[in-house]
């Protein structure tokens, strides 16, 4: 048993099949694969592709079913800052159907509804970063990651809510709305990519993009019971991602399965001349290694060395989370892994070092929002006053505070005491992770010290909120890839709240994380990570 709470198995892991209202879903029901464990059953993307190419489902029908669910659930969850025009979306779907009809080649993501975090630029669609200062802004270009998804046939259904410019861990710091957790509407979805995590959890889209500077993909994935992946720094181009802390920022992936998340990562990875920090390394096919559960041996991870980071299951961590992680570790052992505890003595230094670096870099990066070249401009007859008023009106409290703290840390005479020391701590953290990953294939930890908490609970206590990032910030400082996947539940809400397991790998070894994560997911029995709201009759 991984947890004390076990939600009822009210829904298959492929929620589309349960819906009966729409014609397309009847078709889906009849398209149940012969073997329950075939690979398409583990990936909505592969399953949808199968159905489209075999003409059992049209892209228009698929799009309708997602838009319907989005319309029904959105007033409760509020994931989106902008929903794409349904006519435009359906037109794109129709074009895919026409191509299939003409037996033309369609991209591997043809017709897949995706959501994009609103700090990632989309051409001719609003991209606000969750900030008033960019209200109404429409970038003249797509971020490279978005462009790649569109080129592969994906359909962007909307832009998701976030803490302003990614600064927050609850999505409450958005200038526009507060997103709710689909598992319990009185709780936060996590953040800053709360809208992207909640929209996948609520099955409003198949996969979504987020960004992760200090845990902004992984913590909301844990809170919402979905899979979240933070790639190695450099794996995915940051071109078109609104810069927060450039030495830490990465674009990351959400999906309802490890396979979907891996397919999404594969779609957006690779060198981009528009981002000098993007890597020229070859991108392996992350998807080729996924094997169906039926073909797994009894101990498929025999000999894999797993290090449980001791500092992450110590004081200050919720006991329910701890037991879920210990259960997950036991499950890995049953799969053949050699489990060891490892100590990273510098672990807790990561938190203050992270916040020094992130606020310092944000104070520099956000100087571009001056009301002159784009965004909202305050009226003034003096140039400095125009800057000061535009920024005063445009930024929210958390952003202002981080800019001010960063300005302080970078002030003449203080640089050595703060920014430089934080960079030295980063060196120590990198080395300690390197040593731990020389002795272990992967490291594991919780994704957050607690499950989702109540909206408003930590709003006025920045240090309490920052403390929640302890499990994730070190990974950004070291630039490593990490996969978070749901592994159990703790008490809370109607049926319990999901808990995420974080797996950390060596630089550019996402392949291993996805392989281990996929086997873990396929062999974890007795859990259903579809929130009750979605299986509720009111929405079907």
């Amino acid at each position, binding site marked *: 048993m991984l947890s004390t709470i076990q939600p009822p198995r009210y829904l298959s892991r492929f929620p589309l099949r349960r819906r009966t209202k729409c014609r397309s879903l009847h078709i889906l029901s009849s398209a149940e694969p012969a073997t329950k464990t075939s690979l398409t059953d583990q990936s909505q993307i592969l399953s949808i592709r199968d159905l489209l190419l075999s003409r059992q489902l049209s892209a228009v029908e698929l799009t309708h079913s997602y838009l319907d669910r989005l319309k029904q659930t959105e007033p409760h969850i509020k994931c989106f800052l902008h929903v794409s025009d349904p006519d435009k979306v359906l037109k794109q779907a129709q074009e895919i159907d026409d191509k299939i009809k003409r037996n033309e080649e369609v991209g591997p993501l043809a017709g897949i509804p995706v959501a994009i975090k609103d700090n990632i630029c989309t051409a001719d669609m609003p991209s606000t970063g969750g900030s008033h200062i960019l209200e109404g802004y429409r970038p*003249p270009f797509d971020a490279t990651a978005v462009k790649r998804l569109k080129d592969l046939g994906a359909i962007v259904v909307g832009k998701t809510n976030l803490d302003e410019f990614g600064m927050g861990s609850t999505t409450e710091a958005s200038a526009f709305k507060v997103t709710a957790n689909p598992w319990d509407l009185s709780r936060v979805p996590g953040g800053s990519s709360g809208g992207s995590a909640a929209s996948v959890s609520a099955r409003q889209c198949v996969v979504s993009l987020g960004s992760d500077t200090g845990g902004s993909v992984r913590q909301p994935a844990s809170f919402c019971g979905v899979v979240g992946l933070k790639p190695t720094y450099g794996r995915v181009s940051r071109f078109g991602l609104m810069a927060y802390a*450039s030495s830490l920022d990465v674009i990351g992936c959400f999906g309802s399965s490890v396979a979907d998340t891996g397919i999404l990562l594969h779609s957006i990875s690779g060198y981009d001349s528009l981002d000098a*920090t993007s890597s020229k390394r070859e991108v392996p096919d992350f998807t080729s290694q996924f094997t169906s559960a039926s073909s797994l041996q009894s101990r498929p991870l025999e000999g894999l060395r797993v290090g449980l980071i001791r500092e992450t299951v110590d004081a200050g961590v919720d006991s329910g989370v701890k037991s879920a992680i210990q259960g997950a570790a036991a499950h890995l052992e049953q799969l053949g892994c050699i489990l060891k505890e490892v100590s990273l003595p510098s672990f807790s*230094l990561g938190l203050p070092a992270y916040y020094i670096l992130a606020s310092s870099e944000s104070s520099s990066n956000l100087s571009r929002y001056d009301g002159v070249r784009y965004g909202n401009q305050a009226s003034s007859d003096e140039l400095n006053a*125009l800057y000061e008023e535009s920024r005063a009106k445009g930024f929210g409290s958390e952003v202002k505070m981080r800019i001010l703290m960063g300005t302080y840390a970078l002030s003449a005479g203080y640089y050595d005491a703060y920014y430089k*020391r934080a960079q030295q701590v980063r060196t120590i953290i990198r080395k300690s992770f390197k040593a731990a990953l020389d002795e272990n294939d992967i490291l594991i930890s919780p994704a957050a010290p607690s499950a989702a908490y109540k909206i408003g609970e930590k709003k006025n206590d920045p240090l309490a909120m920052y403390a929640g990032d302890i499990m994730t910030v070190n990974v950004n400082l070291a630039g490593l890839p990490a996969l978070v996947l749901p592994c159990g539940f703790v008490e809370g809400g109607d049926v319990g709240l999901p808990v995420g397991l974080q797996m950390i790998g060596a630089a550019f070894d996402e392949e291993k994380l996805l392989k281990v994560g996929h086997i873990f997911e396929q062999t974890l029995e007795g859990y259903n990570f579809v929130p009750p709201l979605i299986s509720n009759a009111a929405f079907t």
Partner: protein
Amino acid sequence: MAMGSSRALLILSNFKFKPTLPFASSSLKPFPPFIRNNFRTRNFSAKTSSSLPPPDLPRLAETARISLAPNEVEEFAPKIRRVVGWFGQLQAVDLDNVEPAIRADTEGDNLREDVPETFENKEALMASVPSYKEPYIKVPKVLNKE
């Protein structure tokens, strides 16, 4: 999760967090150890303490070009003082002879050739400018100070 348990994560009692730190706030009390470690801590010199005065909010706001309302100063000042005080714990870590890392440095730079490229969609770019009068971006008078 209770507030108290989350705060326990913030304090490195093994790093001998000292209440006499430059910005230590009385609201930060020592907590039970969160980590066991072998990091050496160093002694504070009087010089370190005196050379780092606490944040002067109006001055910072001016430097950052953000005008603050009086109620914001009141709201932000204690929060910023607390966080900056918490930043101060890194002063206690022995980092002699440790090289700073500009970033994770998973791979070196891939700089492109330094040649200009034309952005095709220039009109859309200029359309974002709030105040534009062909061919200039309009701003208030700059030279109005002696």
